[in-house]
């Protein structure tokens, strides 16, 4: 494993709400171009870990490194610069409800590029087409279905061609087919763009379909258990809790 292949490093991260500790000493590395899954039972702190990686919540201890650069150890301005490296698809899509889909995707471009309006429009149409939403440019988020909202959120996350994409529970609230299509889309994007992908999920079908690498968070011990490819973990891991999780309780 060459060192320059590491895209993200989570270094001894301890997460807490006030004095209540959620997880301690999480340490993991995410390889460039891989799909990394954060697994865990409901309430184990998966989404909290994501918030720490996104800069929405300050860690109680430890740091996250992007391309070897500290994220939490630097001042706000330097951190702002790092934000440009990634895009996020929130659980509910989190589209800006007062804007149309096109405006949602266009806003990051307006803020961070000096492109002409025509160029922006072309790129917005391309991004919406990539997620299968051509023709929905002028719809408001409230006018489309939950699955479409997620895809539109993905288009927005990809607006600035980020090197990393974060997904918070991509399959939550979606039917199996839509969910599978979203997984296919994630794989397709990784293969064609080389994007590093971090996914928070507890959906087994999705985990086995897309994950190259994963960590498992255990709510009871408040520790991370192991890092590895979930398919290998299922075959070789002797960790009973993890096996239980990966087999829907069938291992016990």
């Amino acid at each position, binding site marked *: 494993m060459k060192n320059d292949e590491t895209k993200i490093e989570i270094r001894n991260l301890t997460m807490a709400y006030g004095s209540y500790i959620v997880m301690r000493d999480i340490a993991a590395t995410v390889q460039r171009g891989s799909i990394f899954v954060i697994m865990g039972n409901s309430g184990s702190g998966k989404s909290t870990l994501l918030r720490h990686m996104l800069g929405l919540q300050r860690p109680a201890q430890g740091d996250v490194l992007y391309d070897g650069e500290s994220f939490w150890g630097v001042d706000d301005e330097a951190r702002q610069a790092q934000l440009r490296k990634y895009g996020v698809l929130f659980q509910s899509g989190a*589209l*800006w409800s007062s804007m149309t889909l096109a405006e949602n995707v266009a806003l990051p471009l307006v803020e961070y590029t000096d492109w002409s309006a025509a160029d922006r429009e072309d790129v917005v149409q391309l991004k919406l087409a990539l997620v299968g939403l051509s023709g929905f440019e002028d719809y408001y988020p409230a006018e489309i279905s939950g699955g479409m909202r997620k895809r539109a959120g993905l288009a927005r996350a990809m607006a600035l061609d980020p090197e990393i994409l974060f997904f918070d529970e991509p399959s939550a609230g979606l039917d199996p087919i839509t969910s599978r299509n979203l997984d296919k889309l994630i794989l397709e994007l990784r293969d064609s763009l080389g994007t590093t992908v971090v996914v928070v999920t507890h959906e087994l079908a999705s985990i086995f379909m897309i994950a190259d690498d994963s960590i498992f968070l255990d709510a009871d011990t408040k520790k991370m258990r192991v890092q590895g490819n979930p398919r290998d973990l299922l075959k070789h891991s002797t960790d009973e809790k993890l096996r239980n999780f990966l087999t829907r309780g069938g291992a016990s």
Partner: protein
Amino acid sequence: MSNVSSPNLLVERPSPDTLLIKLSGDIRGQSELLSIGVVRDVMDPTTGARLLLFESAGVSAWDSRFVAFIRKCAELCRTRNVELRDEGLPEGVRRLLRLAQAVPERIDARQVFVKAPLLQKLGESAIRGWRDTLELFTFLGENLAALGNLLRGRAQFHWPDALLVMQECGPQALGIVAMINFLVGLILAFVGATELTRFGAPIYVADLVGIASVREMGCLMTGIILCGRTGAAFAAQLGTMKVNEEISAFQTFGISPVEFLVLPRMVALIVVMPFLCVFADLISIAGGLLVSISMLDVTATEYLTRTIHAIQFKSFLLGIGKGSFFGFVVAYAGCFRGMQSGYSAAAVGEATTRAVVTGITAIVASDGIFAVLCNALHI
């Protein structure tokens, strides 16, 4: 030997250390029948019962209250060291009981409410108040920094957003502002008319209505209307955006929510309020005029001449200056409470309430301070 009996429940004692509860018929909704007190009485330690049996072959229908009753019996048996055998219970009840016992109670899950002493409560609310004040000023700082960025042309600020807010809180508020201020003008004139007529100087109603409207009532009433109408809307909008993770989405794009969401609202209200105040002043004076020409021996020309004569330009400027400040207060309270909102529907409701309360309190309090200052400075 039978101890206790009622239509569908019979407690028997087939042997000295055995209790048998016999149930029959439809025991749905008969809560007075399924009284744990009865079981507790017959299971008194002095009676030496060691075993509790059930017989329910005659039960035709039961509901959750019955299961809850059996669960209570089981708990009682545990504490009294009595063995409970569930063979005699209906199959469904036994399954439900097993399901309820499958996961033992999490000892630390049940929350214990300790009644805090008065002094502790006082201290806690003082700390909360202090934190709230700190947040209030932090937010003020963020806003001033954002305003600085705006003036240097570096803010993530979109004028169309500000214009849209102006449209919503300006022209669309004209109806309610007109109605309220017209009524205030009427009321002021009525109060003045009865008193001033006694002194034989009804024409001074024009002075009263004019000065009061322009200096105080116009901007005060408009500020309060805007607070209930627009301040509450701001808090609800931002609060909902927070619940929906839209604010987080802005942050992950490095777009400052203060510059992008709060600043346009702030600028819009500060710009719109003076215009609304001028409008409010005119309508209020019209209200006074209506009362004067219909009740008093005053013509419209006399009234208007007197009004123009009475109102000083500095009073007019003071009025619209205060109006602009109240606009800032309303936007500030609305946005601050909205951004402070928690992540639930109830939290958004609370944010809205607090926005209006904070806004109105701040408007009236600052108006008082303005009055004292103006008096001291002879404005």
